[in-house]
């Protein structure tokens, strides 16, 4: 993974010193709350319902075991012994004390981590494919480009005060696991006619109040031009994006109001001025970054491990876990393993400090000491030998991280919601838990197959409810918490926004609503048809009728 040199370290150290002084000035009354707000936000510090919340950046979701141990330590020393992995591959601590945040940042800096631009109206943490480097469908490993863009975005002097937050996602694969079409900018690596690497550029996607699937504004951008082109997009947005209404300030509204074609013309005109300039990325720089992401020392294996095969045949619980949580690797004899942070009774994405410490030991023992965080809020060991899967499974089971539910109904994506977040209209964690408790029959879950259930506590959509096969949105009706249901959303290369099935429900109705959606699916499905495929084929009406016939 990328390791800081003296230059990178100095940038982060100087940020710690700057924020320490900003915090001191605030506590001394030299900065008002209004003045301090944008400063602390650019450092990931929110003032939440009960305490400040600190969001720590995990650039493109990649962590070393050493960094994971540091997150465990911070959870233990400054929080209540746990942390929350977010849908943007970051980590949030819900209970730090404001005056201790500079110390937390100093501890993070010691392991090459920070909280820079994890909130505020600036370019946020870059997100990417959680299988990067290990997946078999990669055009190119996206990580050198992720790091290039992380560095470009860090304290970019022109774009520190954008109209609104700005999220960039990058994938190097043909299967989009990074949800690039629902980001402000999505970049997908592609090869040009000569086999050269470039990017397809998608702009103006996003969830939130106005969910929109992004538009391709350039089919092929040579990789050397990537920073010039990003500068061009951001400059057009910074100058012309709306600032009169925060709900219309995201780039997707500018793209929509101008039309994608006109917006693209503005970007291309700006790019003409920048093209070939000093920010053109030299091949040597890409090679330097790529050298940080060389493959680990894989063993030469046959790819068909006999002990693994017999364990799958003999042990049904292990076989279930393999079926759901283990994914093919590009190297024979290796596998990608997902650690489920979706155990029933634990808020989705939460991990205790003890779990993080043990997971760090396990990733050292089984997967070359590096792991990734997925935007579905799980942890990934990308390079595990097949022959060691059984041993790893057994250890993960003891740790409570082996729930065999990846991609299933209970692998719920969920924001912190009204339990923690001051923006929320409704709680989301108890809804997730009630659904997980209702659907605890593993055979039934496996029979239902792949279902993305996403829950957001408000229309800011941190739980990505619009792209859930089943999406749940918390809404406020006269001070009471209600839940609106959408179906048919999908992420990935054919991202679609789910459709609302009708009036919202009370919290206690939600498990029944989900049950009825599943019943009608089971009745109507064709063989091997996923829930979302059935919705696409038959439309939402049969689902709607079933749910409301029974409910009202």
């Amino acid at each position, binding site marked *: 993974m990328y390791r800081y040199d003296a230059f990178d370290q100095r940038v982060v150290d100087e940020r710690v010193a700057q924020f320490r002084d900003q915090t001191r000035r605030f506590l001394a009354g030299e900065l008002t709350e209004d003045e301090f707000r944008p400063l602390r936000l650019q450092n990931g510090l929110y003032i939440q319902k009960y305490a400040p919340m600190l969001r720590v950046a995990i650039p493109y979701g990649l962590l070393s075991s050493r960094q994971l141990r540091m997150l465990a330590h911070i959870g233990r020393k400054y929080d209540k012994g746990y942390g929350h992995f977010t849908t943007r591959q970051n980590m949030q601590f819900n209970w730090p004390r404001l005056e201790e945040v500079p110390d937390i940042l100093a501890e993070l800096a010691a392991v090459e981590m920070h909280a820079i631009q994890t909130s505020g*109206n600036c370019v946020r943490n870059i997100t990417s494919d959680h299988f990067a480097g290990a997946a078999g469908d990669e055009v190119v490993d996206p990580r050198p480009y992720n790091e290039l863009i992380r560095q470009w975005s860090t304290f970019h*002097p022109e774009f520190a005060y954008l109209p609104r937050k700005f999220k960039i996602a990058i994938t190097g694969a043909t299967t989009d696991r990074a949800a690039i079409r629902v980001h402000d900018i999505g970049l997908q690596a592609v090869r040009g006619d000569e086999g050269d690497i470039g990017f397809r550029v998608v702009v103006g996607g996003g969830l939130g109040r106005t969910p929109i699937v992004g538009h391709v504004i350039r089919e092929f951008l040579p990789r050397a031009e990537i920073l010039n082109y990003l500068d061009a997009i951001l400059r057009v947005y910074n100058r012309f994006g709306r600032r009169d209404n925060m709900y219309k300030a995201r780039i997707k509204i500018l793209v929509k109001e101008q039309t994608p074609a006109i917006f693209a013309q503005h970007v291309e005109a700006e790019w003409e001025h920048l093209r070939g300039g000093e920010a053109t990325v030299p091949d*040597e720089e890409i090679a330097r970054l790529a050298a940080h992401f060389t493959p680990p020392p894989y063993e030469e294996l046959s790819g068909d491990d006999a002990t693994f095969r017999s364990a799958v045949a003999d042990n049904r619980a292990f076989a279930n876990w393999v079926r759901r949580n283990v994914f093919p690797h590009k190297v024979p004899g290796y596998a990608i393993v997902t650690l489920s942070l979706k155990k029933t009774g634990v808020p989705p994405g939460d991990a205790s400090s003890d779990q993080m410490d043990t997971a760090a030991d396990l990733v050292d023992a089984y997967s070359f000491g590096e792991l990734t965080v997925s935007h579905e809020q799980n942890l990934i060991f990308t390079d595990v030998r097949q022959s060691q899967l059984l041993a790893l499974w057994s250890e993960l089971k003891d740790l409570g991280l082996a729930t065999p539910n990846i991609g299933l109904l209970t692998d719920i994506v969920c924001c912190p919601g009204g339990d923690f977040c001051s923006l929320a209209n409704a709680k989301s964690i108890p809804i997730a838990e009630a659904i997980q408790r209702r659907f605890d029959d593993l055979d039934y879950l496996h029979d239902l197959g792949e279902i993305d259930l996403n829950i957001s506590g408000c229309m800011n959509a941190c739980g990505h409810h619009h792209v859930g096969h089943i999406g749940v949105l918390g809404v406020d009706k006269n001070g009471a918490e209600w839940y609106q249901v959408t179906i048919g959303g999908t992420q990935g290369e054919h991202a679609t926004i789910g459709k609302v099935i009708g009036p919202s429900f009370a919290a206690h109705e939600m498990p029944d609503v989900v049950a009825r959606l599943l019943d009608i699916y089971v009745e109507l499905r064709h063989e091997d048809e996923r829930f979302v495929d059935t919705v696409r084929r038959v439309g939402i009406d049969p689902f709607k009728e079933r749910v409301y016939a029974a409910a009202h």
Partner: protein
Amino acid sequence: MPQLIKGGAVIDDRWILLREVAAGSVMPQVPVIVPLAAWLGARDDLRARGDVGVWLSPADDPALLTRDVAALPVIAVDFPKFADGRGYSTGRLLRERFSYSGELRAIGDIARDQMYFLHQVGFDAYVLRDGKDAQGALASLRDFSDGYQQSNRRTPWFRRSGVAAPNAEAKQ
């Protein structure tokens, strides 16, 4: 008198900022900075004076000054609110696209925590919002000793780090 930070020091400001100029009014015969509309309305006369500058609101298009940059002694860019970042792009465009080399000053809601970024995009003079600590603001110009990106003050780090040669073919 407002405090002006320029050239690494806090100095007295000789320029009078006219936030509004009524149409047809007589311009005072002292160094003044006038709104863009006032400048465009009497451009030739004001240019001949040599002691008239112009200020731009966040929405003003700096391209309207393309013909004037060589003659303008000062261009000010207004930041009505700290969080309104349009002026950062305005600054870079004036410096890099329109080759403006005179004084570029930031006015409005300016405090120390913007100083570093303002300097990087080409500003060289800063009028602090009333009551703000000028010495602290001077210190904040050095919050960061360097940065990754190309800016008005530097080429990207990857062109200086020894990784790659300077871009000989770069357009200027």
